[in-house]
């Protein structure tokens, strides 16, 4: 009953004009970002992060969360109509979604993607509401060593699934951690890596770094690839969007399974919408009575993954809000946004900032309804937008990156940091490095360092604190296992690639 009352209070908070406006803006811009191939939720949130500096913590998280789950809705449009995934978690939708479109069933594919996303988004939010509180109570028993171990696990999971080479991803995590050390040492209070530049005393800001790594590098890569040159958009009418009764019968199971699977994958640190959509597609194919039809345009291949990627976004909030651990790089940016407003997530978050927690939950319900109403009628508008040539769109995104970085502190040095990290991100991505671990390690770095050093101080310099405390030891063992397992598995895949 308490949860219900809190939820009602949260919906009331989300319905306040300012919060409602930011929720609407978030889901609208999120859908737009999802539609535009290349940018993705990471780049989009990094770009729009500075806009949240002048608004309240509550409004900023409602806005940024809206962008994240809005992206999942928007990404399916380009996957289905153009066979170009708007963002990575909708790559799998291209397979059957575009085949459906080629067979003249673009409408039902878009429709089931929107309805499935809505159902999964809503059920995922209910899951978040139910799971967060018990988990926060468990997390209250955690000490510094447990937090350190959990953050190690978060980075290891992201590293394990994110790139072809685990070694390269680990290098990126170390670089991100090293970048987070710039500024004043949190325990001793001395300067580190500031090189006499006063601006660096407070450390590097997340926004210029993330905008450079994700936004600028994406523009530079897109500029070379000019992916929009060969777009072939399939036309469809608004009245055709509603799936038939048979479509609903075929999709009900995949939507529900995708919702549960996506939610669970979303909770795991390092998991997220991309992994969830792939896992759902694989599960549906395995459970199907006609697996051979997958890839030829079956609606189950759209309903499952589209539901999974949406519920994964809700699941991803659980480790962030209950333990202060971002489960993926997008959550790391949300954590950064909250920290800017002096809000620290963790076990005490639900009691200290219950208004924000329930406000976000309330806004997710409202946002999902908004998306369902907005998504289908706006498809013609998104299609028109995709016709804007990249030679116009990319310079404008670049200008927005510059202004976004400048607005953090009204300091042009942030633009310099953005351009250098943009160049770094471009070179690294070209060399097959994944830049997401930099961002995650950059954000977790300060907390990890303090937890690690404090643990050693508590144990009087004994590393046994990381072995004798059960949760710490198990978490570190799981991290080690994941590194070895994914390392060996990747080697096998790689060997196979070489042979073929």
């Amino acid at each position, binding site marked *: 009953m308490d949860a219900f009352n809190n939820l009602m209070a949260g919906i009331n908070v989300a319905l306040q004009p300012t919060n409602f406006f930011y929720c609407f803006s978030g889901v609208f811009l999120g859908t737009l970002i999802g539609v535009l191939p290349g940018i993705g939720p990471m780049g989009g949130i990094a770009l729009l992060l500075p806009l949240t500096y002048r608004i309240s913590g509550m409004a900023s998280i409602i806005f940024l969360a809206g962008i994240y789950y809005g992206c999942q809705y928007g990404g399916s449009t380009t996957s289905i109509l153009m066979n170009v995934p708007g963002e990575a978690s909708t790559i799998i939708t291209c397979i059957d979604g575009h085949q459906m479109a080629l067979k003249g069933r673009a409408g039902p594919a878009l429709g089931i993607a929107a309805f499935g996303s809505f159902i999964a988004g809503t059920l995922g939010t209910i899951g978040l509401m139910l799971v967060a509180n018990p988990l926060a109570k468990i997390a209250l028993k955690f000490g510094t060593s447990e937090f350190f171990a959990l953050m190690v696990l978060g980075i290891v999971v992201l590293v394990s699934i994110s790139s072809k080479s685990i*070694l390269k991803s680990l290098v990126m995590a*170390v670089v991100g951690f*090293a970048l987070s050390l710039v500024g004043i040492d949190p325990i*001793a209070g001395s300067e580190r890596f500031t090189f006499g530049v006063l601006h660096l005393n407070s450390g590097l800001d997340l926004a210029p770094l993330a905008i450079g790594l994700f936004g600028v590098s994406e523009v530079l890569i897109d500029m070379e690839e000019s992916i929009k040159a060969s777009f072939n958009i399939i036309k469809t009418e608004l009245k055709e969007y509603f799936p038939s009764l048979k479509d609903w019968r075929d999709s009900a199971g995949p939507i529900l399974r995708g919702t549960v699977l996506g939610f669970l994958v979303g909770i795991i640190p390092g998991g997220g919408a991309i992994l969830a959509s792939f896992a759902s597609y694989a599960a549906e194919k395995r459970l199907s009575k006609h697996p051979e039809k997958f890839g030829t345009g079956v609606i189950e291949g759209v309903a499952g993954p589209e539901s999974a990627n949406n519920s994964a976004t809700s699941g991803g909030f659980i480790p962030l809000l209950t333990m202060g651990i971002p489960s993926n790089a997008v959550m790391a940016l949300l954590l950064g946004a909250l920290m800017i407003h002096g809000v620290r997530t963790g076990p005490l978050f639900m009691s200290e900032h219950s208004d924000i927690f329930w406000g976000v939950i309330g806004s997710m319900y409202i946002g999902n309804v908004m998306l369902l109403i907005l998504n289908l009628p706006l498809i013609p508008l998104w299609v028109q937008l995709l016709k804007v040539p990249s030679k116009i769109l990319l310079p404008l995104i*670049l200008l927005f990156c510059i202004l976004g970085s*400048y*607005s953090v502190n009204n300091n*042009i040095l942030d633009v310099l940091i953005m351009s250098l990290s943009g*160049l770094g991100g471009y070179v690294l991505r070209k060399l097959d490095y994944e830049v997401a671990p930099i961002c995650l390690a950059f954000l977790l770095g300060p907390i990890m360092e303090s937890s690690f050093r404090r643990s050693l101080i508590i144990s009087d310099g004994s590393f046994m604190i990381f072995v004798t405390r059960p949760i710490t030891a198990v978490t570190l063992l799981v991290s080690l296992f994941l590194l070895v397992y994914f390392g060996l598995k990747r080697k096998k895949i790689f060997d196979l690639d070489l042979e073929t």
Partner: protein
Amino acid sequence: MTKKQYLEVGVWLSLSIFLGIKSIQLDLGTLSSPGPGFVVFILAGLLLLLSLGLLIEGNLLRKSFVQRPTFGIRSLCIVCLIIGYVLIFRKLGYLFSTFLLMTLIFRLMGTKWWVWALGEAFLATLLSYLVFEVALKLNLPPGIF
């Protein structure tokens, strides 16, 4: 292993040595009271091990399967333009410096005619000024205007 891969490993090794030296300069402290350089030292060690790992991994691959990335000169030009923009931003002000930057970027990104690039840059600068300065009150430097 290609020359570029050796260079790549060399960069990480150099960074690891740099972090190692810095960690000692920052004060390592003791195990029971770790100093500001303690974690830096661990990171340096990790980076050293990972660089060696990359070296071994690179040598295990056959050369024919190593993809050679190509770096676009236009991308480097754009970053140089932004760095130049940083230098002139305060002196010339937002409107003039942004107009200059955007004209060059529009040209670099495929607008064929200078007149078109000038027009696009003018519109982009004006619109961004109206949004960020007039509406959002960002305090952009006026410079020569």
